[in-house]
């Protein structure tokens, strides 16, 4: 069978049609070949100068980043840092392609991207994710870079340590926030409550009772109590102020020798949870939906323990005179007058994923982003708190103090700030604690029983069985 016949078999069935198609194909093929040759002849002379010109052009680099909402802060920060980075590298054309995701999606998206080896150059990391990311070998070890950078001593110790996992630096804590007590001055006044009485556990509960009678049928609730999924975050300060811990190192782990063990069911933990129980018994309703301070700004609550981001719910035009209407006590209530208080610090770290294809340039960008002259204006604009002493205590502080309401008091809280453990198992441990808090809120269990049961589960999660 000839070649033409075999082709005919595949294409059309009958003789004449097959011949016609073969001829048609052959003609088309020649036409394509001629056109191709013409194209090559036309383009070939221009290829050499093009290559030379390309070599003379600045190198194009696009850095990629995944960061958490709100977007505006990143727009400001990236724009300023990129301008400085470009100045340092006139031989390069540097761009940043960054994706801003809602908080709830950020961790999942980052993990998915890194597990899939997607090259990303910079990410924003919530302090509690660091352990998980580092353990998964998703983050670049910055220890050597940090040494030659020589700026670690500029950070508050707690904030610097937050970026360390197993002795290695994986993230630089860019800014923080603290939780404190906010109240509406007129509402407290109307109900005859002295703000100072809110400082102790007993005073706090008595104030709630007093306000309850005063605000009846007015659509205002006296005191906000978190019942949402982050309820453990608002319980930790009570645990810490009593000297308790969430987890502690313990030897005898079946696989790891010395490892973390749940410590939150200690006497201190029980006492801290009893305070939450007493609030519920006094008629304070745990709020299962959380609006991150908007509910306070809307005057739905007279008193609220909330992060410093609450200020962002007030228009910036009102910031200057905000202290006339809204009061702030830089503490969580303490068991009795004179006791030391505590608070929880959050905020964002910057880290470089292991998959980054531009690690040196990403590190340079990161260091520019945390430079006081770049970072401080952004903090001022959005009301965040610094993690670096040169911003918190230096010349920048005067500027921040004149813009951010209660800035000095908020900064003073950094010294009593604690952070949550950045270990891979933390999300499950927090879920166990959340269950214990819910059980106490609903009266299903007493604080001790609830915490013991939760700690048993946490021990299992940590591999202690």
């Amino acid at each position: 069978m000839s070649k033409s016949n075999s082709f005919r078999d595949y294409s059309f069935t009958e003789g004449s049609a097959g011949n016609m198609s073969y001829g048609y194909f052959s003609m088309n093929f020649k036409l394509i070949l001629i056109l191709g040759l013409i194209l090559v002849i036309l383009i070939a002379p221009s290829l050499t100068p093009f290559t030379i010109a390309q070599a003379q052009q600045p190198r194009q680099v696009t850095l990629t980043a995944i960061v958490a909402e709100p977007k505006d802060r990143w727009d400001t920060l990236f724009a300023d840092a990129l301008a400085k980075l470009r100045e340092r590298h006139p031989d390069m054309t540097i761009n940043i392609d960054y994706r801003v995701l809602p908080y709830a999606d950020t961790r999942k998206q980052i993990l998915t991207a890194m597990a899939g080896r997607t090259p990303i150059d910079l990410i924003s990391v919530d302090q509690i994710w660091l352990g998980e990311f580092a353990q998964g070998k998703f983050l670049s070890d910055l220890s050597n870079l940090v040494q030659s950078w020589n700026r670690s001593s500029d950070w508050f110790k707690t904030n610097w340590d937050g970026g360390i996992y197993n002795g290695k630096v994986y993230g630089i804590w860019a800014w923080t926030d603290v939780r404190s007590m906010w109240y509406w001055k007129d509402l407290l006044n109307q109900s005859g409550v002295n703000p100072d009485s809110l400082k102790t556990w007993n005073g706090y509960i008595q104030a709630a009772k007093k306000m309850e009678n005063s605000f009846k049928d007015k659509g205002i609730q006296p005191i906000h109590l978190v019942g949402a999924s982050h309820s453990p975050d608002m319980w930790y300060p009570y645990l810490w102020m009593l000297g308790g811990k969430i987890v502690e190192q313990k030897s005898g782990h079946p696989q790891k020798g010395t490892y973390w063990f749940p410590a939150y069911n200690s006497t201190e933990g029980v006492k801290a949870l009893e305070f939450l129980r007493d609030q519920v018994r006094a008629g304070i309703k745990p709020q299962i939906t959380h609006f991150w301070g908007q509910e306070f700004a809307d005057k739905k609550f007279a008193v609220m323990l909330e992060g410093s981001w609450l200020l962002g719910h007030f228009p910036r035009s009102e910031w200057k005179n905000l202290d006339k209407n809204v009061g702030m006590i830089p503490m969580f209530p303490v068991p009795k007058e004179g006791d030391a208080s505590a608070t929880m610090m959050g905020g964002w770290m910057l880290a470089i994923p292991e998959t980054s294809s531009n690690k040196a340039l990403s590190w340079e960008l990161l260091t520019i982003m945390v430079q006081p002259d770049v970072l401080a204006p952004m903090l001022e604009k959005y009301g965040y708190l610094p993690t670096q002493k040169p911003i918190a205590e230096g010349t920048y502080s005067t500027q921040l103090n004149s813009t951010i309401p209660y800035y000095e008091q908020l900064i003073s809280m950094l010294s009593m700030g604690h952070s949550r453990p950045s270990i891979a198992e933390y999300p499950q441990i927090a879920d166990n604690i959340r269950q214990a808090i819910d059980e106490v809120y609903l009266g299903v269990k007493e604080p001790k029983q609830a915490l013991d049961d939760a700690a048993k589960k946490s021990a299992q999660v940590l591999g202690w069985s």
Partner: protein
Amino acid sequence: MLQLRTQKLQPYLLLLPALSILIAFLLFPLIWNIYLSVHDVSLTTILGGWKYVGIKNFSNLLYDPDFHKSLQVSLVFVGGSVAIQFFVGMVLAVVLNQEIRGSNTLRALFIIPWTVSAVITGFSFKFIFNDSFGVLNYGLGQMGLNPVAWLSDPGTVVWTLVIANMWHGTPFTVIFLTAGLFSINPLVYEAARIDGATKIKSFFYITLPLLRPFILINLILITMWSVNFFDLILVMTNGGPLFSSTTSSLYMYRQAFEFGLLSKGAAAGFIMIGINLILAFSYVRLFRRQ
């Protein structure tokens, strides 16, 4: 000879695109899920070696009281959702099938909830049922009644979710059964009427038997959707309080994506496939027997 072979191959070649899609998006994930479920993989070990653990993930699930609880919650949620969606959907479909003015407009309006995404439905109902500031409790307050802890009472919360799911899912039953009702020849009703059958008798002896295939498919679909449904629940309650609204699908999601326990999540997913298959098979058997 070659021509004959080509002709024989032709149907398979035509099926190839559809089969490739099925294999890539259905069979491969299923096999991958099984593979994951017999290994010990978490988000933190995904880039390392995957240790084979056999049925350990399944046995862990069977001893996990939270998983038991999630199965109980699923039973109530799916049972309640399917029963109410089917009953309300059937009533509406039959009523709209009567010669009523504006029935077509009403049908179009009834589709709206189904076109709204479950996440938006979840947010809307979260605000409606909010214990402190919700519209519903405000209304109750105006009538002098005590507020109800719709979302924070472990005994109530699952029924709140059933109501939200009913609003979201019933339109599908209405549309599906309406299509079934359209397929019934009106002459059958006419003949029954001449023979003296009342409307109720016509419904039980003509409508229901002739609708049976539609009812069967509808029940299978809404049951499977309710078993797998989790986005509305995630938005409204995130499974709380005290796991009282954590269905098996939400449990699976939280294990895999909140806690990063991919293998445990995969094992839960595999069990859910089994549950879906058993339910579908039961429906088919039940209807065949009848």
